[in-house]
Structure formats: structure tokens, C-alpha cells
């Protein structure tokens, strides 16, 4: 079959050429149209429910909403995790589905179950399934700046001008609006006036609802026409609202303005946004899952450019987060590494081949293979991101291998100047090496197959790497057997086989050294054994971690303040810290801080929580050489502000951590149990223990208890005398405190809620418990009574946060780990906790976070790698028909791993998933080199009977291909190993391992393999 393919290609050169051009064109188009993002989509199939229950405490929401829904959701098939976070007035329930579950099916299931329990939820509960987004969907953020506009006006602009426009952009799932004041038409009922007029609050509400509507009354036939009859009562303006007649008592007409103050107000605030120490408003664009982030960002930018001139004069949209920047930088890093790798490989090929035409023939396979890979990526639905493009960079050195083998054999055949047609000679040359080329590529493909079995985050990150490598290798293989022979037939001359002088010199030197080694092998063997032992030692001392942290460019500091803090006090503290940071850390370009919850509820932080987002100046303007030093400087400033917990993270890192574990941090310790107070106590003790373990930083305990509530217990016997139910009582109080929506005014596209509320800044606002007790309540019969006569007001304490996993409450302690590996840290921590902490009955403890991922990745790899090795052994055995030959080649693997581990240790990198992937890649390359060497020894078995001469001469002859494959693979990764841009962090350990391993395995291939082959042959002959 292979022969037919080669023959077809050489006989149908024009057709294959056109086909190649077509594939190239498709590849080019695919490159231009591939979805571009910084990361692959790492989110599981996840459905989130966000429900708001105004006025309800965390415990009430948990009992009446969260538990009810969780019980219903537990029946949905294919779910992997059900967790929830319940806070004051809001609950977030997250359902992770099994890998591969269709997101639309999952959402439908959740929607159906939610609909089943809707009626059993409290009446005021609103919300539902959250937009179809991922943790990486927050890809564009900006604030609205205009000193001439109030926060209310800026928020109104965002809500009704900017947000609707941005939602029309393709790929935008939603626009989350934060900060400022959401405008309302505020009705502040005056209880004494209501009492004088004899109107209850419920009646007032009903009157407003009944009158603020247009209704159709049917149709009136007028001759041959039909006219629609409608009654119009909708209120169009605040003036009209104030004039609404609420009661007619004889000649007395009471209008709304007589019994209440009607004014422009705002909804109760659950959060705020500050920029550089001053309050502002923010919009956060959320992209749809599976959308093309780069294109969505472009669309958003275009829409904003279109909008900006139409906004009030002086309005500036201050973009402080643009995912496109990260994408550009990350893709730029990888693209730059790719271009450099191609250039290096081309130079190496030219040097080794000593013939420009031959080098061009081989080099042409690089862009062609890359374009074909892009085409295959587009067919497979892969996006261009750090990982997939990183896979291509890794493959660059190996892509040329098959072409090198083919071209080298072609030039050798041509040099023999046989009296056969040129095309036939090329055909014969290709046919001779077709099987080894295919088997070599298959070995590499098998080597990378374990990556396809990775699950979780590591699977989502490294599957694109493996798939891209597979695509690239496959494309390179096909090209080497089809297009490369054609190009060779057009470009190569008969004298192309001349070996460059420097390679000849190298061969001679190598041959002499190999002869010496074979005479006295003891020292070399001892040296390699010592190195092998050294690598074991370095392995023990090398830190282990899950994944290197990608430098996203920006920094987020998370603050946690006293749990009962008010929004105003929380913002006041934030502003102080922001000003200090801006003043003392000039590397910070601007700060945008978000306190409390967002509008949609995707990230329902409490009022005591703040995310301080820092946009940094270009690194060239920094006083520090690294970001770690900058973070230390920021940390020093933050440490001057006691009484506030803080931790460092980055925009994507924060969301990924929250997505994976529901909390952020390298390590999370979850304590499961039922009693909130006990959980809080245990969490504190665990946090204390963690702080004592070296390497722990940013240790934080989620504050779950300490919530303070004012409890108003209605005296039913008194209230009922006036016909006042507890529900009406609560509604009345809500209208005085939080505000209660009654109706809305529609002005064009703008909908402004009409609410019963009291301006918090007015003298009528309830500011103390005493004022609450004296609050006059208007009864259903229009009479009034002070609240203290109807109810008892008292203080209560309760949880501020209830977190649950699979229906069980838990408290979480998170920690980042610095200066040591996570695995070692967790082992030490586990031992310390076991020694110092006795858990009560019914309470348990679990470690999570990145540590969990690392453990899972290790388990998966330890299962799959042996299987891959077995497959390789089978292939080798099939190729050589000898188990000893196969073992000889496989024996090179420990030496390859040895080099990788030593390089990792020397470079100071940790053993992480990317490093492990590098070690896997080494298996293939090490085996390939061995195959190249041993296959030649076997080929010359009959032509050279003296074993020593066969081995030495064979090794010298195979020096060039071995060095070519090794150096192209090694030097192809050098740009990645030395890259400094964002994204380089993840690929760097991989490149270092492969470079180190290739170096050691090449040396062992050149010296130890011939030596052991010699011993093997000699023993075989008896």
C-alpha cells in the first residue's frame, strides 16, 4: 500500500501538487479562522443555577432553596459533582457533568428539574440557570468614566445603552454590570399620611399595580373596519406617578404624592466598584461557551467604538482587562518560538546535509506540515492556543525526521548514478525506507497516546498538545511519502549526497572515541551508572507540582474583611489600600476593585470580600526583575493594613481554581460536617496548623459563621387583631429597609422599577434598632401602631456562608504554597494534622485544589505509560524479530529520563504535568534513535562479518541521522526553553526535560548502545 502511494505520487505529480496546494490553502484559511484563545476550553460540562432570595439569611436560603433544589438535582444522570454556595439572599448551585456530556442536554435537564421545584420555593425567589459560559468567559472589562455624570447616571448608561448594544455582539453570553446605583422610581410611603388617608401599604401597592398597565379590550367593528380598543393607564414619568390617584373619599382626592414621597432612587446595593480609590461602574463581558474569544473581543471593541461617540460628552470607556492582550502575548510567545524553531531546524538541516537543495526539500516539509496541521485542527474543532501551538513547537524537531530519512536515501540512491530513470530511483529510495519511517512515526504516536487518557484539567490542557503532535506527525509522514519525493525529483541533483567535511571530521572523531570506549568500557559505564544514580537523587530533591503558573500579566489581590462590615465601610477600606498601592507601587498602572456581589450573581461575593484587579505597567518599566519580586513589594504594602485577610491570584487562575474546587488556592482543605460553629472552629485550627508548615502563604479560612442578624418576632395575637399577617409585616418592613419592587415604568427601551423604599441617606431611614422599634406600621385597616407593640426585636447570630458538596456542609481552608512542592507540603501537612487534630464524630477532612489534580494526573500516567511501553516493545519485537534487540533499544529510555531529570533539577523547575509530558516525549525520541542505530547494524549483518568493525563503522555512518534527529528535536525546543513571554511557563519544563533527555539519550545511543549491541552479538555467537 505504501509503495502504491509513493508510486501514485511520483506518477501523478501535477495532481498531487494541486492537491497539496489545495490542502495548503485550506490550512492557511484554517489558520486565519481558527478560534484563538490563551487556553483550550478547560471547563467541564457545567451548569450553574443562581437564585436570589432577597432578605433571607444564608441558613434560610439553604433550608428553603438550596436543599430543595439539590435534592431534585441529585437525580440527574451523568453528574460528577454537585456543590453550592449559599450566602445572604443568594445561592449558587453548580453541577458538573461527566466528560463529554452535551451541554445543551445538561442545561435542559437542570431546567426541567428546576421547574419541578419552582412552586415549592419562596415566592420572592428569582433567577435560574446562569448564562452558558465558562470560567474563562470573563474576557473583557471596562469602567465608565465621566466626572460630569453621577454614579447613578453612569450605571443607567451601562444598563440601558451599553449593555443592550453589547449583547447583540455574536458570542456574548451576557454583560455583567457592577457598581454604581441602579436607578429606580422610589416611593417612600409616609405612614402617618397613609394612616390619615386610611390606606394600607398593601392597598397602595395594589392601586399602583392595577393602574400602571395598558390592556386590550377587544375590537370594535366600524363599518368595514375593525379597530382595536385598548385601555391605557401605563405611567410614563415620575410626575405622572406622583399624580396617581390612590383614594377618593368624598370630595377628598388622595394622590400618591400626598401619602408618599416620590423621587428618583436606587436599588439596594450588594456591591460596589472602585477605580484608583474612587467609586465607579464596571461592565464585564461574558463570552458564550465554545465561542471564538478573539473574535468576540474584536466584536465587542468594534461595538464600543461605534457606541462611544453616541455617549454623553466626556464619557470614556476605560478598558482594564482585555483577553486579547493575553492571547496576543501568549500566542506571540508561542508563534515566536515556532518561527525560531523552524529557522534553527532549517539551519541544522543545511549544516548536516551540506546541500542547500536537500535542505530546502526537507525544510519545505515544515510549513507544509504546519499548514496541514492547522487544517486538521480546524476539522477537529481545536482552537489555536498556548497548548495546541505548543504541541506544534514540540513536534517541529520530529516533523522533519521522516523527510530527513527519505531525502537522505534519495540522495544516496541518486549518487550511485545507476542507469535507471530518475523517478524510478527516487521511488526505490522511498520504498526502501517507507516501513521504518512509518513504524518510527507510529512509535512516536503511541508514545503520545497516554496524554489522550489524561482527565480533568490536565487532560483538557494536554489533549490538545497530544492531538496537535499526532496531526503534525501524521501530516509529516504523509508529506514525506508523497510531496517530499516530488519536490526531491524537481530540486535534487545527483551530487547531493556529498557529506560535508565537518560531518566527516565529526564521524572520524566519533569513530576513534567509540573504539576507545569499546576497548575500555568500564569508565564510561561507571560514569553513566553514576549519572543514573545522580538522576534518582535529583528526582527526590526536585519539587513536584501540578502545573506551572501562567503569568497572565495582571494581578488580583483578594481581600477579606470583617464579616458584618457594611458596603460603605468595606469600600472605604478598599479605597485606602488602593491609594497606598498606587502611591507606593509605580508598577501598577491602574486598580479596579470589586466589592460584594455582581448583578448576575456569577460570583456572589459578600460585602466583606474584594477583588482588587491591578493592571500593570509594561515589565520594562518595573523596578524589579521578576513578577515575584513585584508581588513581594505589593505584599509588603498590604501587610501594613492589618485586620484584613489577603491573597494573590490572577484573573484566569482565580476562575479556574474556583471552577475546579469551588475555591481558589494551590491547596484546599475541606472539613465536612453539619454544625457551622464546629466547622468554623475546626477550620480555624486547620488554618493555624497550615500556617505552621513551611511553604504556606495566603492561608485563608472562609468565614462561615459570625453573621449578625436582627430578628423581628411578630406578636401574632396583636398583629392579627388588626388583620396584619407575618407576610404583610415582612413586606412592610422590606419597603422600609431593602425596598420592594411594585411595578415598573417603561420609557422606550428603558425599564425602571417602581419600588417602595426609603432613601438610606434621608432622616426617615431606619438607622438604629430603636428607630426600627419605633417604626410606625400602617395596618390593613389604615390605623397605625409602633412596631414594638407588634413585634419583638432581638439580636441573633448565624452562618454568613454555607458551602455544600454533594449535599454535605463543609468549611474550607485554602493556601498557596511557595518555595517547595505541593506534594511534599501536603504530605507534611497531613501528618501534622493527624498528630494535632482530633476530628469529632461525623466530621471528616479532604485535601483538594491543585494537589488533587496532581495526584490524579500521576495516577493516570502511571497506569497508561506502562501500556504504551508494552506497545512499543511489541512494535520493536515485530521490527527486529528479537526480544533482546527490543530490550536493547528500550534500555536507552532510563538514560533519556536521566538527562531530563537532571536538566529539570539544574534549571530549578518543578516536576509538573508538562515536565511529565516531556518525559513521555523522550520515550519516543530515545527509542527512535535506537531504532535508527540498531536497524543499520542489522542491515549490515551480512556485508560485514566482524562484529566490532560492523558496530564501529555502522555507528559512524549512522552518526549523521542520529545527530540530525536529535539536534533538530533538541534545538527546535531551545526557543521554547528560553522563552520569557506569558505562556512560556507551561511549556518551559517540557522543553527542558526533552532537551536534557535528548542530550543524554543521544550520548548513550552513540556509545552505550553500540557497546551493548556488541556484547549481545558476541554472546550470541558463543
Amino acid at each position, binding site marked *: 500500500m505504501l509503495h502504491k502511494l509513493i508510486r501514485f505520487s511520483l506518477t501523478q505529480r501535477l495532481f498531487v501538487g494541486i492537491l497539496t496546494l489545495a490542502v495548503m490553502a485550506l490550512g492557511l484559511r484554517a489558520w486565519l479562522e481558527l478560534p484563538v484563545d490563551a487556553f483550550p476550553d478547560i471547563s467541564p460540562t457545567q451548569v450553574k443555577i443562581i437564585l436570589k432570595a432577597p432578605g433571607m439569611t444564608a441558613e434560610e436560603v439553604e433550608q428553603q432553596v438550596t436543599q430543595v433544589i439539590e435534592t431534585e438535582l441529585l437525580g440527574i444522570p451523568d453528574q460528577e459533582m454537585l456543590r453550592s454556595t449559599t450566602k445572604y439572599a443568594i445561592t449558587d448551585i453548580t453541577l458538573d457533568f461527566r466528560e463529554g456530556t452535551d451541554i445543551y442536554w445538561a442545561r435542559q435537564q437542570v431546567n426541567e428539574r428546576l421547574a419541578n421545584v419552582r412552586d415549592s420555593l419562596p415566592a420572592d425567589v428569582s433567577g435560574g440557570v446562569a448564562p452558558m459560559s465558562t470560567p474563562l468567559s470573563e474576557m473583557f472589562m471596562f469602567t465608565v468614566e465621566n466626572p460630569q455624570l453621577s454614579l447613578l447616571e453612569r450605571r443607567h448608561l451601562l444598563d440601558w445603552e451599553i449593555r443592550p448594544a453589547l449583547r447583540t455582539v455574536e458570542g456574548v453570553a451576557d454583560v455583567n454590570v457592577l457598581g454604581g446605583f441602579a436607578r429606580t422610581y422610589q416611593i417612600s410611603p409616609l405612614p402617618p399620611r397613609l394612616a390619615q388617608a386610611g390606606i394600607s401599604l398593601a392597598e397602595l401597592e395594589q392601586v399602583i399595580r392595577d393602574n400602571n398597565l395598558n390592556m386590550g379590550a377587544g375590537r370594535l367593528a366600524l363599518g368595514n373596519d375593525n379597530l382595536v380598543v385598548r385601555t391605557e393607564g401605563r405611567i410614563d414619568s415620575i410626575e405622572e406617578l406622583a399624580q396617581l390617584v390612590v383614594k377618593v373619599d368624598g370630595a377628598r382626592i388622595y394622590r400618591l404624592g400626598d401619602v408618599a414621597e416620590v423621587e428618583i432612587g436606587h436599588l439596594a446595593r450588594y456591591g460596589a466598584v472602585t477605580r484608583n480609590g474612587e467609586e465607579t461602574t464596571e461592565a464585564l463581558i461574558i463570552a458564550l461557551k465554545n465561542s471564538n474569544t478573539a473574535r468576540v473581543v474584536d466584536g465587542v471593541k468594534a461595538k464600543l467604538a461605534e457606541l462611544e461617540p453616541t455617549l454623553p460628552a466626556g464619557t470614556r470607556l476605560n478598558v482594564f482587562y482585555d483577553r486579547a492582550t493575553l492571547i496576543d502575548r501568549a500566542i506571540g510567545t508561542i508563534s515566536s518560538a515556532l518561527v525560531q524553531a523552524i529557522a534553527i531546524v532549517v539551519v541544522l538541516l543545511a549544516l548536516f546535509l551540506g546541500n542547500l537543495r536537500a535542505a530546502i526539500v526537507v525544510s519545505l516539509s515544515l510549513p507544509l506540515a504546519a499548514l496541514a496541521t492547522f487544517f486538521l485542527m480546524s476539522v477537529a474543532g481545536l482552537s489555536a492556543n498556548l497548548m495546541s501551538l505548543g504541541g506544534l513547537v514540540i513536534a517541529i524537531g520530529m516533523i522533519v525526521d521522516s523527510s530527513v530519512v527519505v531525502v537522505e536515501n534519495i540522495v544516496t540512491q541518486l549518487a550511485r548514478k545507476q542507469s535507471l530513470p530518475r523517478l524510478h530511483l527516487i521511488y526505490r529510495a522511498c520504498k526502501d525506507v517507507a516501513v521504518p519511517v512509518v513504524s518510527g512515526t507510529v512509535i512516536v504516536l503511541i508514545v503520545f497516546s497516554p496524554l489522550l487518557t489524561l482527565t480533568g484539567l490536565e487532560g483538557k490542557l494536554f489533549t490538545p498538545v497530544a492531538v496537535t503532535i499526532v496531526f503534525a506527525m501524521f501530516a509529516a509522514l504523509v508529506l514525506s511519502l508523497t510531496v517530499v519525493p516530488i519536490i526531491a525529483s524537481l530540486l535534487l541533483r545527483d551530487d547531493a549526497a556529498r557529506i560535508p567535511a565537518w560531518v566527516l571530521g565529526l564521524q572520524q572523531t566519533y569513530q576513534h572515541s567509540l573504539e576507545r570506549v569499546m576497548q575500555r568500557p568500564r569508565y564510561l559505564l561507571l560514569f553513566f551508572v553514576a549519572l543514573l544514580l545522580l538522576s534518582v537523587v535529583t528526582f527526590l530533591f526536585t519539587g513536584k507540582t501540578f502545573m506551572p503558573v501562567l503569568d497572565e500579566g495582571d494581578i488580583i489581590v483578594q481581600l477579606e474583611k470583617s464579616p458584618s462590615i457594611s458596603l460603605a465601610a468595606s469600600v472605604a477600606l478598599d479605597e485606602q489600600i488602593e491609594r497606598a498601592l498606587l502611591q507606593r507601587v509605580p508598577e501598577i498602572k491602574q486598580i479596579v476593585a470589586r466589592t460584594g456581589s455582581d448583578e448576575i450573581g456569577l460570583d456572589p461575593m459578600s460585602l466583606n470580600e474584594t477583588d482588587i484587579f491591578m493592571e500593570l505597567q509594561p515589565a520594562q518599566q518595573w523596578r524589579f526583575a521578576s513578577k515575584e519580586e513585584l508581588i513581594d513589594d505589593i505584599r509588603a504594602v498590604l501587610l501594613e493594613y492589618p*485586620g484584613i485577610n489577603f491573597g494573590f491570584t490572577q484573573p484566569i487562575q482565580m476562575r479556574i481554581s474556583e471552577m475546579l474546587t469551588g475555591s481558589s488556592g494551590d491547596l484546599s482543605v475541606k472539613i465536612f460536617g453539619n454544625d457551622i460553629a464546629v466547622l468554623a472552629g475546626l477550620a480555624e485550627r486547620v488554618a493555624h496548623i497550615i500556617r505552621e508548615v513551611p511553604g504556606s502563604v*495566603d492561608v485563608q479560612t472562609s468565614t462561615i459563621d459570625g453573621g449578625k442578624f436582627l430578628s423581628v418576632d411578630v406578636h401574632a395575637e396583636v398583629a392579627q387583631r388588626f388583620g396584619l399577617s407575618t407576610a404583610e409585616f415582612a413586606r412592610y418592613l422590606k419597603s422600609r429597609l431593602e425596598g420592594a419592587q411594585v411595578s415598573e415604568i417603561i420609557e422606550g427601551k428603558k425599564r425602571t422599577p417602581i419600588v417602595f423604599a426609603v432613601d438610606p441617606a434621608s432622616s426617615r431611614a431606619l438607622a438604629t434598632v430603636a428607630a426600627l422599634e*419605633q417604626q410606625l406600621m400602617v395596618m390593613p385597616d389604615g390605623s397605625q401602631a409602633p412596631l414594638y407593640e407588634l413585634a419583638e426585636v432581638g439580636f441573633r447570630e448565624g452562618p454568613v456562608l454555607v458551602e455544600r458538596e454533594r449535599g454535605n456542609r463543609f468549611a474550607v481552608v485554602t493556601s498557596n504554597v511557595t518555595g517547595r512542592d505541593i506534594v511534599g507540603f501536603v504530605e507534611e501537612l497531613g501528618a501534622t494534622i493527624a498528630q494535632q487534630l482530633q476530628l469529632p464524630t461525623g466530621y471528616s477532612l479532604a485535601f483538594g485544589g491543585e494537589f488533587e489534580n496532581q495526584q490524579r494526573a500521576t495516577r493516570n500516567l502511571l497506569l497508561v505509560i506502562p501500556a504504551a511501553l508494552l506497545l512499543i516493545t511489541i512494535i520493536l519485537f515485530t521490527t527486529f524479530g528479537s526480544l533482546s534487540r527490543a530490550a536493547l533499544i528500550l534500555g536507552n529510555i532510563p538514560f533519556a529520563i536521566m538527562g531530563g531529570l537532571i536538566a529539570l533539577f539544574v534549571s530549578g523547575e518543578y516536576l509538573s504535568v508538562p515536565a511529565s509530558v516531556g518525559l513521555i516525549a523522550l520515550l519516543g525520541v530515545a527509542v527512535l534513535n535506537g531504532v535508527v542505530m540498531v536497524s543499520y547494524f542489522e542491515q549490515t549483518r551480512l556485508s560485514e562479518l566482524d562484529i566490532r568493525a560492523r558496530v564501529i563503522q555502522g555507528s559512524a555512518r549512522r552518526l549523521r541521522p542520529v545527530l540530525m534527529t536529535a539536534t533538530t528535536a533538541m534545538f527546535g525546543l531551545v526557543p521554547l526553553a528560553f522563552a520569557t513571554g506569558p505562556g512560556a511557563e507551561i511549556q518551559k519544563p517540557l522543553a527542558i526535560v526533552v532537551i536534557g533527555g535528548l542530550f543524554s539519550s543521544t550520548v548513550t545511543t552513540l556509545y552505550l548502545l553500540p557497546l551493548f549491541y556488541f556484547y549481545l552479538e558476541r554472546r550470541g555467537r558463543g
Partner: protein
Amino acid sequence: MIRNSLAALLLALLFAHGLRAQELQLDALGAFELVFQPARPVQNYPGQQVAAAVTYRQGEAFIVPSPGRVQQIAYLVEPGAAVRQGQPFAVLRGPEMHHFEMAYDSSRALLAGAERRYQANKGLYERKAISESQWLEISEKYYALSLEHEHMRHFFELVEEGDNDPDALTLTAPLSGVIDYSPAPGGVQEGDSIAQFVPDAAIRLEATLPNRLRDQVIALQWGACEPAVERVSAMTEGFFVRVWSVPLAPACRPLLGQQLLVTPLLAVRGAYSLPRSAVFQLQRQTMVLVRDGDRLRPLAVTLLGARGEDYVLQPAADLGDREVLVSSVSAVQGMLLGLGGE
């Protein structure tokens, strides 16, 4: 006894230790902006707004009764208007007006006759020339006519002179004040009020307050006006008690009958005013942080009410002129709760 004393001593020591444990060195507050402010003593604080009416107490108005049935009254001023003494305020019309005048003239003539008769018979009676019963009859007649005439005279004192229309009487205000009238639908009968005149000094506010405030309220405030509360009813009406202010000064005198929303001012002793930002919750108590040299000491307070941006509060111990932390208080609260750092 000894055991009890030891227990008390132990409790006192524990309490003192608890307070000391909560004290903080100012240095420990790091770079936080620390603003201190002395607490301002206050004598009263505002309660929740209530309804009040501008009114007068029963009996404080001057009533002009009608001497007879009146067919038509044309009021010259609107109810609630301020009038001067002698200012025409109503014109009574109808044939009865002529009869009133005739009745007045006849009463005057009859009285003159009766007086002559009385004087003439007085000497006879003193001389015992007439009997006791005859003298009694003459006297009764005289005094009855005199009383009747005086009634008529008082009414006609209010009638403006110079009106030539025999069917109309123009009435003038008996005193300066605010006129109030509300004629019955069936017209004015003899003895009915034609109008009431409320002297300026009788106009005051009347409000109903929650019973709990009856001993505390000292004034009713709206806008810049703050009339003191003069009387508090000794009876309650449901959950409320009725209070009256002192007569309203001219600068603070809305229209009679006007309904107002007023804020009762409640008297308090040992209270202070502090910015709201000074107050925080700790261990189920409301606290402020008092500066004590280079230390901060939490002090329990009771919040009474709010005035503008300030709270009115009563501290557990006298604040005197000591300074209280009014900024970054939540950070200190965090420190006391054990928050802070990484």
C-alpha cells in the same frame, strides 16, 4: 461568704482581662488612616416622624354666636385667615337683620323704661312704700331686660356702623387672630356659632406619639421650628398618647388645621453624638474605639437614634472629652476578630 467574694473577684479579674485583651496599640494599626474626633454631648435626639395638626385647645377660641336665625351669610375672609380686631368678616343678610335692629332698638327702649321704673321704685321700696313682691317683680323685669339688651349690645358692638342697608349687618372681628367657621348645611340658627376667632397665642401643634415616648418627648420639630411640648395627655388612645406644643411663634405658624409631619425630639442624659463610621459590632455589643494614650480601647455603647450623619449614643462609661476613632474602624474590628495577613 468568702467563697462568694472570691468568685466575684475572679469574675472581675476575668472581665478586666477581657477588656485588656481587646485593647490595641495604635502602632498595630499600620498604615490605616486614623481620624479621631471627640464625642459631642447632646441633650436630645430625633425620634421617628409622626403626624401633627396645627390646632388650638378646646375653649381657647372666641365664638361669635348668632342672635337669631340667619338666612344668608357672606363671609368676607376665608377660614384660617388672620384678621385684625374690628375687621369686617361677614355680612348677614335677610329680613331678619331689620328685625334684629328693631329688636335691639326696642330692647334699648324697654330697658330705658324699665330702668326709669326701677330707679323710681327704688326709693319707694327703701321707704317701704311698695311691697317686697312688687319690688321683686320690678327688679326681675329690669335685670332681664338689661341682660337681654346686653346680649344684643355685645352683638351689635360687632356690627359695623354706617351700613344703610336695613336687611344687612356687617360683622367685625372681636379680636385679632385666626378666623374659623364652618356653617351648618341647614343655616345658622339662634345661638349657633357664626365664626370662631383663635388668638395667635392659642395656636399650637397637636400630635400623637407612641406611648413609649410620652416621658421623653420635649419638642416637636419640623424644618427649623422646634416648639417645646407643653402638655402631654394623661390618657392613652390605643398605642398612642396625645401631646400639645407651646403656642407657635409667628415665624413657625403654619395654617390653622394644617397637617404636618413632625419629628419628636426626645430628651436624653449622658448621650453623645458621633459619626456613624465610629460604631461597630463586637461580641453581640455595639462598640466604639476610645483613644487612651497610645492605645485604643473598645467601649460598649447603646445607640439611641440618628441625627444626620451621626449617631446619638449612650456610652457605658462617660466619654468626657476623650477622642473616638471615626475612620478605619472596620479594620480594627477585623483585628479584634483575628483577621489579617496572609
